[in-house]
């Protein structure tokens, strides 16, 4: 592999508050050096990245790659292609595949498929319970040995508090977080959107904020009881934010993520029965969005995760009640967050990069999220002046279900390196 010199970019390494214009030399798959006027080894590939931002590759701790089981809507190859196009160099794959990723062989399959694709790093998440049925613990030890970095029954809540307790306790041996999809099913079942004035007008069954908050509260109490690490997936309500804030003040091992769409859209997006606004947890109210943004800024919520959830193009072409939950997000996450949060004044650019790289890496104890010499060269180059209009037809994902279609956004990854290899290069740039 030829050495690569990224010359003249604004280099932001949130892992050590580094933010200055300099060069980055990549050699042998690693970051060899940072600094102005680095010597050029023989055969170096010099890239002029003046005016661009050089950052650690983005890390997404919550994606659904649908393989095995639903390869018609996404594969590990297509999902990681979408990931690198979105600037992500590492993604954590949720286990609600078919069959469920609940054993070492299934985890190993994902690792092998990801290696074969050779794009983003894929860190599998194993199921908490066998078959995600909420009954018996899966073999955490064997799954972690095969490459799993966390456990989760995502897509479903862990209904049994006893199971959640034992998962948090048992996971301590292996040092992995237990990621929970917080939803109290007896309150949420049948609901298709946030319960509020909009659901009342549309005549759609609502999911009250309390359905999430009850489980957030429970999980925090169990984290306190067990000393385990609970990771709270896709937080959506201001009440959840307050519970997490208190838990962190107590020093409990609680981390949390929020999606770009919960940071930018409200339940009004469901008007007209737009099924691309149907997700679980549902889009909430403006006050929730404001609380989530503030929590992300303060670090109460650790990181942004896309909850990339591909669905067939015609599955969303249905009555609202009948459409599946979820949207794709890998290829819009950075631009949505940059446009709405950074240009909107809620976060600085280094803060956003931290919440999308070093913070998620830290939450899941993953490599990456830093530009320190000697680290693997997982790097993204961002053009934060590029304006583009979201056209799902151009997605690398096999699915098109995005509520941001037609939106003009600012900010775009133009070069993505994983282990020093160029895995994505935007078309039509001057690189």
């Amino acid at each position, binding site marked *: 592999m030829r050495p690569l010199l990224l010359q003249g970019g604004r280099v932001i390494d949130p892992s050590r508050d580094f933010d200055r214009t300099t060069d980055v030399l990549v050699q042998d798959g690693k970051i060899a050096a940072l600094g102005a006027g680095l010597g050029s080894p023989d055969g170096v590939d010099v890239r002029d990245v003046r005016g661009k931002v050089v950052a650690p590759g983005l890390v997404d701790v919550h994606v659904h790659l649908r393989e095995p089981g639903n390869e018609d809507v996404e594969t590990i190859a297509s999902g990681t292609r979408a990931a690198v196009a979105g600037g992500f160099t590492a993604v954590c794959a949720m286990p609600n595949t078919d069959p469920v990723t609940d054993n070492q062989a299934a985890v190993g399959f994902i690792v092998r498929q990801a290696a074969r694709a050779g794009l983003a790093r894929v860190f599998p998440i194993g199921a908490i319970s066998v078959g995600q049925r909420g009954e018996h613990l899966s073999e955490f030890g064997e799954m972690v040995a095969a490459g799993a970095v966390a456990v989760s029954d995502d897509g479903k809540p862990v209904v049994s508090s006893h199971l959640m307790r034992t998962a948090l306790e048992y996971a301590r041996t292996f040092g992995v977080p237990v990621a929970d999809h917080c939803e109290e099913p007896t309150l949420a079942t049948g609901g298709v959107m946030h319960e509020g004035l909009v*659901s009342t007008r*549309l005549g*759609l069954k609502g999911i009250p904020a309390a359905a999430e908050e009850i489980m957030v509260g429970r999980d925090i109490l169990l984290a306190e009881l067990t000393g385990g690490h609970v990771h709270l997936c896709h937080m959506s309500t201001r009440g959840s934010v307050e519970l997490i804030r208190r838990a962190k003040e107590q020093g409990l091992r609680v981390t949390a993520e929020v999606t770009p769409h919960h940071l930018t859209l409200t339940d009004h997006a469901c008007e007209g*029965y737009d099924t691309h606004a149907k997700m679980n947890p549902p889009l909430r109210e403006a006050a929730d969005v404001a609380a989530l943004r503030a929590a992300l800024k303060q670090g109460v919520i650790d990181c942004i995760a896309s909850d990339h959830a591909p669905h067939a193009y015609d599955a969303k072409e249905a009555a609202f*009640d*009948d459409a599946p939950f979820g949207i794709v997000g890998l290829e819009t996450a950075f631009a949505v967050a940059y446009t709405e949060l950074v240009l909107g004044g809620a976060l600085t650019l280094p803060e956003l990069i931290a919440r999308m790289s070093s913070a998620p890496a830290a939450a899941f104890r993953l490599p990456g999220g830093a530009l320190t010499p000697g680290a693997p060269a997982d790097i993204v180059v961002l053009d934060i002046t590029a304006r583009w209009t979201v056209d799902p037809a151009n997605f690398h994902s096999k699915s098109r279900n995005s509520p941001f279609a037609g939106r003009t956004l600012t900010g775009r990854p133009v070069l993505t390196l994983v282990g020093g290899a160029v895995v994505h290069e935007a078309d039509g740039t001057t690189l």
Partner: protein
Amino acid sequence: MTALLGKDLVGLEHLSPDQIRLILDTAEPFKEVSERPIKKVPALRGKTIVNLFFEASTRTRISFEFAEKRLSADTVNVAASGSSVQKGETLVDTAKNLEAMRIDMVVIRHPSSGAAQFLGNRIRSNVVNAGDGQHEHPTQALLDLLTIRDRYGKIAGLKVCLVGDILHSRVARSNIWGLLKLGAEVGVCGPDTLMPRGIEQLGVCRFRRIEEAIEWADVLNVLRLQLERMERGFIPSLREYYRVFGVTVERLDRAPRELTIMHPGPMNRGVEIDSRVADGSHSVILAQVTNGVAVRMAVLYLLAGGRPELAEAANRAAAPPPE
């Protein structure tokens, strides 16, 4: 020509007061058609209408069918039970198939909120919502409005209270929009378990006790209580519901003024309404049913491009000979 009402009638939320008045005014001359020995006018001759019912219905379907036939339209009824079809997929495919058959109008009832709009957005034919999930049932609200206007000569300033299961009721939502747009005061009464979140923000008064609603209102529109609401735990028993919320003669006797009692049907006698009330002098429940045909004729006529000032003339034209 579809300018007066737009292409579809999906609900009353997005209609203007003038559009609602236009439908009610257009219904007036059509009332008379149903009183003739030969109940037919040629207004929609040559038009094809599909009645697409994904959910069981007797009175609404028959009312639409009479309205269509009395306007001389050609009609086809399609009933698809929710259990035998994959609802979402069928709806897309149904839309495409209907389009391919070049029909003029679709009257749709569907268990999913938004289904009528979904269909309307995908086909060129006019779509009339005959009830979608818990969203709207606009023709029911229009016939309720017409019945109130017949009784009082006006709607503005009247106090109309919807009683019962507001949470699951498309009739309630359509009535709230229609009544508010025409200047009525609107109340809702029922247990909190059957009240949707944020309902007060629509501009309605909230009553937790039926006695208070009766004291306040000029008109009570008593909604049907689905028996499954008890099975799903929204209320403890029908017996208690009747005792706490039932519209009874004893309660009406204490009202400060003569109330008008409405019910969209089908009634559960002895649950939400006392039989003596349903059959008594306060009740306009059968007048509602009669007005239903006229209102639906008006909606179909206007969506087909009929001009309201010609509705009377259309009526005066000789009825076609029996076929």
